[in-house]
């Protein structure tokens, strides 16, 4: 554990170690790395093969890309390799409140791992990020409304109701929940404050395609677990630092939020 926390002080930024986990085909790791680096933290690119102890880090990030080619299903291969290697440690890491984030392919991995939506501990997926309604990969800007009331540690710095412009780029981003439990699960997501981002139009309304690029139910773009420390979203805040567009703030606030959380943890 980092030195600072023993004394109850906040932790120094540069001591915060972020594990950006990768395997072949995870190709968004550089921009994820820089997202943390620019904010003064100490990210590291770690190949799953070389990961020794996840508790060497204060935060685990799974970047976007096409891990192992996404050949079976997006994120499936990466998830099963993580499970085979560190399933128990990962659950302990999460239980202790350390943040775990997944962007795009990383979100798909967290869902395939069963840690999102994470209603109970399980070793198989309890949701799915399914093929977009358009049945194709689409890269386009999207507008996201921040809906979380304060539970999600990755968005605490973002005011509720804020609308931000964030690029999306995925082929499988439609959140599906088990059909038998669909209503129950969606209710729980909303009641538990697990919904983090939803796709909207310029007026802030929950609009259809192309505002919602994949057909996700309730326009959901990102969710967190019940404790708020596991978080996944389809669009790419790590790519959104060029355009401080009139429509919103920079995506860097996602990373700023989680670093603040770790500093204060």
């Amino acid at each position, binding site marked *: 554990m980092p030195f600072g926390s023993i004394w109850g002080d906040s932790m120094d930024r540069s001591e915060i170690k972020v594990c950006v986990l990768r395997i072949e085909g995870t190709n968004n790791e550089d921009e994820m790395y820089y997202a943390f680096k620019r904010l003064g933290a100490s990210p590291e690119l770690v190949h799953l093969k070389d990961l020794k102890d996840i508790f060497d880090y204060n935060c685990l990030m799974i970047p976007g890309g096409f891990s192992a080619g996404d050949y079976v299903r997006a994120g499936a291969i990466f998830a099963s390799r993580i499970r085979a290697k560190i399933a128990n440690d990962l659950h302990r890491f999460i239980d202790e409140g350390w943040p775990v984030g997944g962007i795009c392919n990383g979100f798909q991995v967290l869902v395939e791992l069963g840690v999102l939506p994470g209603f109970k501990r399980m070793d198989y997926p309890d949701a799915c990020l399914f093929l977009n309604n358009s049945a194709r990969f689409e890269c*386009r800007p999207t507008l996201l409304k921040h809906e979380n009331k304060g539970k999600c540690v990755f968005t605490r710095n973002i005011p509720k109701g804020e609308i931000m412009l964030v690029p999306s*780029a995925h082929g499988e981003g439609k959140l599906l929940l088990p059909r038998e439990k669909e209503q129950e699960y969606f209710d729980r997501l909303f009641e538990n404050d697990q919904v983090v981002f939803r796709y909207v139009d310029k007026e802030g309304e929950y609009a259809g395609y192309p505002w919602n690029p994949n057909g996700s139910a309730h326009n959901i773009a990102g969710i967190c677990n019940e404790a708020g420390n596991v978080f996944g979203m389809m669009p790419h805040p790590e790519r959104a630092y060029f355009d401080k567009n009139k429509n919103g703030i920079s995506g860097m606030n996602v990373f700023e939020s989680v670093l603040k959380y770790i500093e204060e943890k």
Partner: protein
Amino acid sequence: MSGKQNVYEINLDLPDEKLLELSRKIGIGLSLDEMKSVRNYFREQGRNPTDIEIQAIGQAWSEHCCYKSSKSLLKKFIFNIEAPQNIFVIKEDAGVVEFDKDYAYVLALESHNHPSAVEPYGGAATGIGGILRDVVCMGAQPVALIDPIFFGPLDLPYDQLPKGVKHPEFIFRGVVAGIRDYGNRVGIPTVSGSVYFHPGYTGNCLVNVGCVGIIKKDDIIHSRVKELGDIFVMVGGRTGRDGIHGVNFASAELDEESETSSRSAVQVGDPITKEPLIHACLEANTKKLLNGMKDLGGGGLSCVVGEMAHAGGFGAKVNLEKVLLKEKGMKPWEIWVSESQERMMLAVSKANLQTVLDIFDKWDVDAAVIGETISERRVLVYYEGEKIFDMDSEFLTGGPVYARDVKVVKKDQKDVKTQAPKDINDILIKMLSDPNIASKDWVILQYDHTVRGSTSLTPLYGDVVNFSPQDSAIVKPVEELNKGLVISTAVNPFLLEYDPYWGAASAIDEIYRNIVAVGGRPHSLADCLNFGNPEKPERFGDFYQAVMGLNFATKDLKISFSSGNVSLYNESMIGSCPPTPTIVGIGIIDDVEKKVSSNFKKEGNSIYLIGKTEREFGGSLYYRIIGVEGGIAPKMDPQNLINYSNALLSSMEKGIVTSCHDLSEGGLAVAVVEMAFGSDYGAIIDLPLFKDMRADEFIFSESNTRWVVEVKDEKAFESLLNKNNVPYMKIGKVSGRKLEIKQNGSKIIDAPIEKLREKWKNAIWEHMG
């Protein structure tokens, strides 16, 4: 040399017609004269060649590998243009040009036409794979991909499809899917390209692929061995029977049988092997562990070993059985010429060998030591201890050079008087619904153009879901620098078909103004010259004229061709492709925050036209739509291009230009409406009377060196342009939600932007779904 190892002696002591037949039978496609010089060489050696030796010559001497038809012209008119920013150009797989004091960018452009015609998905995917390797083998990190692609008409009736030819729609779908699946999976953004439909591409689509990379100057590595004893380490994918004779296939016309007979030339790309291969190669290079690096592309091992050794001033000795194979039972010659994907060759000194092998092991990438350099300038190949190949590398890599016959067909270009059209609105709608003008979002949005988080201007950009097409993309390649690479592509096949010389010059004009339109300073070029059969004097005449046009337009611009590729024999049974010298241009923008995009920004801002409009309608969209033939092809003047561009760039630096778009096909009318598409606004354009032109002619003329700009400070803008003697005209303002064009008060175009946008957006979707 015996047949013990599945190697056979080939008897060349044959009468001439048998010699030619032999060339065809073993699939190397050498001409009679070429076969004769091979025969002479081996007579001097006092023996016959082995099958692997003659296959190697077939590879090395193919048009694709040795540029035998085009080399002499290129040397004289393309390669000799110089520019001070060049660090290392033309000589290797990619050009290297200065980016700033510490960094250089690397540019490569290639064609993958024939494979894509036969197997669009795999052909296009491996095209992307190949161009990435060209950039990586200079030691550079790829940062952007570019894909100019050309097909037959989407609405071609199936019964007009020649036998053995796939429908343009099928090819288009497959090519885009191949580029998408490969580019997205390796995580390099596809940020620029173009899509053209023309009947001349029906039997032979063109798939050109470009890549830009970034490198620290200290890390630049060459495609050659460095010292005696350098070890050849082959890394990446394994070698299989896929892609045998790819280069020979690329150096002949397609025929009815190509579909089935050329299957062995089909290659399959594996981006998930490539992605770690890139990481591993770059890691080994930045740790200074490599003496040389080259990709295995056309011609496979056969070309790479000879060329690396020869360029370093040495020879090579290879143990062929050390090559890792995909399948059992491959013959030595097949291993030697296979073009299997995802392979690279490294030259490593003995001292570094183990460290290099460890890096590849870490990334789970196969690596095999297959040979070493020797002092004698020969290539020796052994297979399980037996020598099966022994050739002089000078002879092998030399290759023939031809001066092909040139026949220039002069068109008599005259100005044509046309009837004033009744409904100009309708003509504009037809233009916007023409697949060549229509929105390419069906293609572009399937590519990830924001991956790597460094794309500062995307190819389509505007108001969240409504986009304006942008003239160039901008990528910011270095974390600590605000400087950006401006990337664009240009060529108008209709214009080149009409006039290869001015068509080629116009492509240079267009690339220049595309780069300037977003705020970039043009910096370097790459060309991919796609033409028909050079053995036909008229086809080669097109080639000659286009090369002369490129030379004319470029020689005084202080930018040069840093890399390029020639693809000839783009002909099928239904004729040749239009002359297509695809140009990719790179510009520099000092601060990406200062980029200028093409979508309108603010209601009330003034709209100006920069440049001179002439009666130039030869090869224009306007004449195609109203069915008129003839006219004068657009000319260009390099000095005007430079002057107008400099003035425009300084007005951009002052921040008075809020949007800008260059004028190309469809002229002023199309440019203005495209600027409106990515915004919430429309425009009111009010034109004066012209002496020699009707209003419809003025708004559809395709004269070069023109831009439309949206300006927020008229006085500052006008005084800057006046000072620099740049012709301009204030034509209207950003206003409302309609496009209104009037002349002297009377309306000639009046249409809601929403309606025009629908037409423009749906034209390709209506075919592709």
